[in-house]
């Protein structure tokens, strides 16, 4: 990942965060400095950050083929020594050029640097060859000058990071390698820089643990003091072994008496999954048990505690860190699924938790929650559970309940507040509302966690750890009011050669079913049929190997038969991933034979990309995004230009070997080309992604155009049935297989800033205008009205007709209007996906953005025309009505008297 963050140990809040442009390889904290190493394909970067504020203290970059491998601080100095590519360099703060640099022996991969006194040791693995076994290579270099003092090979048969070797750094005694050869119970100790004798040999009991040889042979050792600043006198390491089926971890400390190097056991833990080093020789170990995590702190005062934790939610603990708040220890643990939790002695609940699995979210589904049922509805349901009350009856029941509530509130004191937005009280994340604003956002993450988060406040409803990386999530059964059938969310994951489909109860996170399907899929999508047994929407998996086919889930004959009964032709594509040169369309054959839970597929079409072009990405409509309320655009002269609406439009972006990109709109059923565009000179790369969003009859895409002037170009392609107004396809049923090419109007704008994702808002009936959503690299979610991205905007001052159509004169730059920033002052970083969903209110659309951060909001592109304004005062309305009634009551006798008087006159 590419983010570095400092969390406050007391509440888990982010103190500061830096998002780097490339993944962070090494992270090292020393005193008030934080060192990161990161590398792109060609460059290696050393960054030293100020630990308090997160500001860059200084940085150094250098072209390095192999990337940045390792780095360390020089003791008593601000300098850093690093292995960048194949060079060992010493860098001083603020310097452009290294103080010295040394080309290293290219045969070893140097992964560790130890600075001791006047020497720097670079240690690397030398891969085994036919002549020699795997061994370590050590280069000793003068710290001040960079001159090589010695270099030699040692520790035959072991490697750095292999579990049988540790590097121990002691300020006083020097730096040592400690290892155990494979199939040997003897410990070797080598003092770095010492070549004669090469090593000392110790008995197996060196670590004060009596072990039988077989247990010794399976033991592993690991470094504990990876930050030597914490304990630089007596470095520690752990030995983990299994005896009688019990896993034990021993913490061993190195010290010296006279000339003799000694090891002593300072703590031992049973079944610990993570051990952390603390200051003042303290160590903490964490164990994940059936229903909680237990932790022990040893060395100095003893502390222990346990906290309630269900490992089924985020997996077992993998890493731990030990900090002290005052004298009380605080153990921060990280789990396999991505949860961070702080544990402290006085509480069985974690002091704080952070769900970092959301930063690895690959997909999200929004579950609509049923509106809260009133007690009257529940009562009606209880008297006759078989009857599902109709919408009209429920409406009447709801009003009866509201009237009762009103009477109650009036009798118990006047409690009608002002404000048009009711129902904003804090509620359980699984409770819905009448407007459809409350959703449950179910995220599937590559760390294997499925987590459900309430859309209103981000509160977690549940989480479940699935052990396999999750790539897609689907709501296969929605929630219904007063229904006993729970909504179901399905997580699709992938193992090496199987597809794992897990169905969970979307309100509780309980696993309903778990299937391992024996194939690797290329794409998964919802099928237009439901499983007759469970009522769930069927899922289709496009499978390329061994033969192209469409696998159906649930993998039952009933499901396949239901799909056959739906009688909808099924098309899917293969070869639409990056790097492909041809996209192939297939038609799934629904036969009578349902012996297998999959459908054979016949090739329907092939779309060969032009020579020298390879596919970058494929975009298609998100669920329902092609819907439109208006079949055409009314022009200023009252004629109509009819929209070309085709849900099967796909946008292919290709990289041209001669430079530039190609964009092709194809019909994904017939494979027919609808529109082609080329952008000579456009660049698509890791730093310049190609982004696209499709909605109604519009395709919007963005790419980088270098040169003078350079900028991000936002191209808009709008498809019409004809270029002549009032000309339309009169057929009531249209097929992709009929020849029906759109007329295209296209133009391009210049985006205000780099974006990382595009999206479009969606509303229930698509009457409301749409906003185009740009997730900007600067951490803003910008919503621009689609009228601004209209390709029909005239290049000249608009004529009367054009004005009547609502067109404004074209201007290339799209403005970054801060009032159109949905995220306001929140910095929403690293957004990879922007999704939108309609609510029950036509004016309002839900918008979710996720990636590194998760952001959820609702927006009204045309204003909240179907809601009372927030300043609307219900109290004023009631008072005015009462005043009118009072006026009538008071006035009536007066008027009556006047009429009587007039009659007498």
């Amino acid at each position: 990942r590419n983010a570095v963050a400092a969390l406050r140990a007391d509440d888990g809040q982010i103190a500061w965060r830096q998002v780097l442009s490339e993944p962070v390889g090494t992270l090292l904290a020393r005193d008030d400095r934080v060192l990161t190493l990161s590398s792109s394909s060609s460059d290696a970067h050393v960054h030293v950050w100020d630990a308090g504020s997160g500001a860059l203290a200084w940085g150094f970059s250098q072209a390095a083929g192999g990337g940045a491998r390792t780095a360390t601080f020089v003791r008593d100095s601000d300098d850093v020594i690093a292995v960048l590519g194949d060079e060992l360099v010493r860098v001083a703060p603020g310097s452009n050029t290294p103080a010295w640099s040394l080309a290293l022996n290219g045969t070893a991969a140097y992964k560790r640097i130890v600075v001791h006194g006047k020497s720097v040791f670079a240690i690397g693995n030398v891969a085994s060859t036919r002549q020699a076994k795997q061994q370590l290579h050590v280069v000793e270099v003068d710290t001040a000058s960079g001159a090589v003092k010695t270099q030699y090979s040692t520790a035959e048969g072991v490697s750095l990071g292999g579990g049988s070797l540790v590097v121990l750094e002691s300020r006083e005694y020097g730096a040592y390698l400690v290892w155990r050869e494979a199939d040997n119970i003897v410990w070797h100790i080598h003092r770095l820089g010492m070549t004669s004798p090469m090593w000392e040999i110790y008995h197996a009991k060196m670590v004060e643990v009596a072990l039988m040889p077989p247990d010794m042979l399976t033991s592993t050792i690991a470094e504990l003091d990876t930050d030597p600043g914490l304990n630089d006198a007596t470095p520690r390491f752990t030995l983990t072994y299994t005896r009688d089926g019990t896993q034990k971890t021993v913490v061993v400390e190195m010290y010296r008496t006279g000339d003799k190097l000694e090891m002593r056991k300072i703590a031992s833990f049973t079944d610990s999954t993570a051990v952390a080093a603390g200051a003042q020789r303290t160590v903490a170990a964490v164990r994940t048990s059936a229903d909680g995590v237990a932790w022990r702190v040893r060395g100095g005062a003893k502390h222990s505690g346990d906290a309630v934790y269900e490992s089924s939610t985020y997996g077992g603990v993998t890493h731990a860190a030990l900090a002290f708040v005052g004298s009380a220890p605080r153990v921060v643990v990280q789990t396999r699924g991505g949860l961070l939790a702080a544990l402290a002695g006085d509480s069985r609940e974690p002091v704080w938790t952070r769900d970092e699995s959301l930063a690895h979210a690959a997909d999200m589904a929004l579950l609509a929650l049923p509106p809260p049922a009133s007690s009257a509805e529940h009562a009606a349901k209880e008297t006759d559970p078989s009857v599902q009350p109709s919408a009209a009856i429920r409406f009447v029941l709801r009003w009866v309940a509201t009237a009762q509530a009103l009477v109650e509130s009036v009798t118990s004191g006047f409690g009608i507040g002002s404000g048009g937005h009711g129902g904003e009280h804090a509620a359980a994340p699984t409770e819905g509302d009448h407007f459809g604003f409350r959703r449950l956002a179910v995220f599937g993450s590559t760390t294997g966690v499925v987590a459900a988060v309430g859309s209103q406040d981000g509160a977690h409803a549940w989480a479940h750890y699935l052990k396999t990386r999750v790539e897609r999530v689907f709501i296969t059964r929605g929630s219904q009011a007063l229904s006993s059938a729970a909504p179901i969310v399905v997580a699709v994951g992938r193992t090496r050669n199987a597809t794992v489909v897990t169905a969970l109860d979307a309100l509780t996170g309980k696993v309903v079913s778990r299937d391992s399907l024996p194939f690797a899929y290329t794409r998964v999508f919802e099928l237009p049929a439901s499983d007759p047994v469970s009522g769930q929407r069927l899922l289709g998996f496009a499978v390329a190997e061994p033969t192209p086919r469409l696998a159906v889930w649930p993998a039952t004959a009933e499901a396949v038969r239901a799909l056959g009964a739906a009688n909808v032709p099924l098309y899917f594509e293969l070869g639409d991933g990056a790097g492909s040169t041809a996209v192939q369309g297939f038609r799934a054959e629904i036969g009578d034979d349902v012996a297998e839970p999959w459908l054979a597929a016949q090739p329907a079409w092939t779309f060969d990309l032009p020579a020298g072009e390879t596919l970058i990405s494929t975009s298609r409509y998100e669920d329902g995004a092609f819907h439109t309320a208006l079949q055409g655009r009314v022009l200023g002269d009252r004629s109509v230009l009819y929209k070309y609406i085709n849900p099967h439009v796909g946008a292919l972006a290709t990289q041209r070997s001669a430079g530039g990109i190609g964009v092709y709109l194809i019909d994904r059923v017939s494979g027919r080309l609808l529109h082609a565009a080329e952008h000579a000179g456009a660049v698509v790369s890791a730093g310049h992604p190609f982004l696209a969003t499709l909605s109604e009859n519009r395709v919007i895409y963005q790419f980088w155009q270098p040169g003078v002037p350079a900028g991000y170009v936002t191209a808009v392609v709008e498809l019409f049935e004809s270029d002549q107004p009032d000309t339309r396809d009169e057929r009531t049923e249209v097929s992709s297989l009929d020849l029906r090419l759109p007329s295209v109007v296209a133009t391009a704008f210049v985006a205000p800033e780099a974006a990382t994702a595009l999206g479009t808002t969606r509303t229930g009936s698509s009457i409301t205008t749409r906003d185009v959503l740009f997730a900007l690299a600067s951490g803003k979610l910008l919503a621009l009205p689609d009228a601004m991205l209209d390709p029909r905007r005239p290049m000249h001052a608009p004529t009367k007709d054009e004005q009547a159509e609502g067109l404004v004169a074209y201007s290339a730059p799209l403005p970054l209007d801060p009032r159109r920033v949905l995220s306001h002052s929140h910095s929403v970083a690293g957004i990879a996906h922007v999704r939108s969903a309609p609510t029950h209110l036509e004016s309002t659309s839900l918008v979710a953005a996720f990636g590194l951060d998760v952001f959820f909001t609702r927006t009204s592109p045309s204003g909240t025309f179907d809601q009372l304004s927030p300043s609307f005062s219900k109290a004023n309305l009631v008072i005015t009505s009462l005043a009118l009634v009072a006026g009538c009551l008071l006035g009536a006798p007066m008027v009556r008297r006047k009429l009587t008087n007039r009659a007498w006159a």
Partner: protein
Amino acid sequence: TYRLRGAILANNVLSDVSELATRAHAVVNGGEHRGYIQKDGSFVVENLTLGDWLLEIQSADYAFPKLHVRIATNDEGRASVAARYVQIGSEWSEDAPVLAYPLKIEASAKYDFFTPRQGFSIITMFSNPYMLMVGASLVAIFIMPKLQANLDPEALKELQEK
């Protein structure tokens, strides 16, 4: 390769440049190269080659001018930097004045993300069409009879006869 140095200066829009440190970056060509901003507002973008570049300060809170940076070598083979302010979506003019190097950039505006809520106002109340209708009917009810009363009885008679 060349490195580009610059600094963000405090002005009356942005008085404390240290707050940019974790909320802004100097970005070249929309993300190809990136410089992190130090506490004193200075930044360095590494690994630039000869040519034309677009330098932006991507900030969560402040708007900054965008710069066209040209790195070229002069006759003596030394690299020089010519930076000019540019507008997004328009030609990069060579006539714009060249900025001093190292670059000094100031924030042009602080983003104001909020539209102030409209308070109660008599004018908006009376510009409401319903209010206008109410006003018109009030005129018809209360003022018209008075006008009629003021009319000359003969003229009234004449009118009624017509």
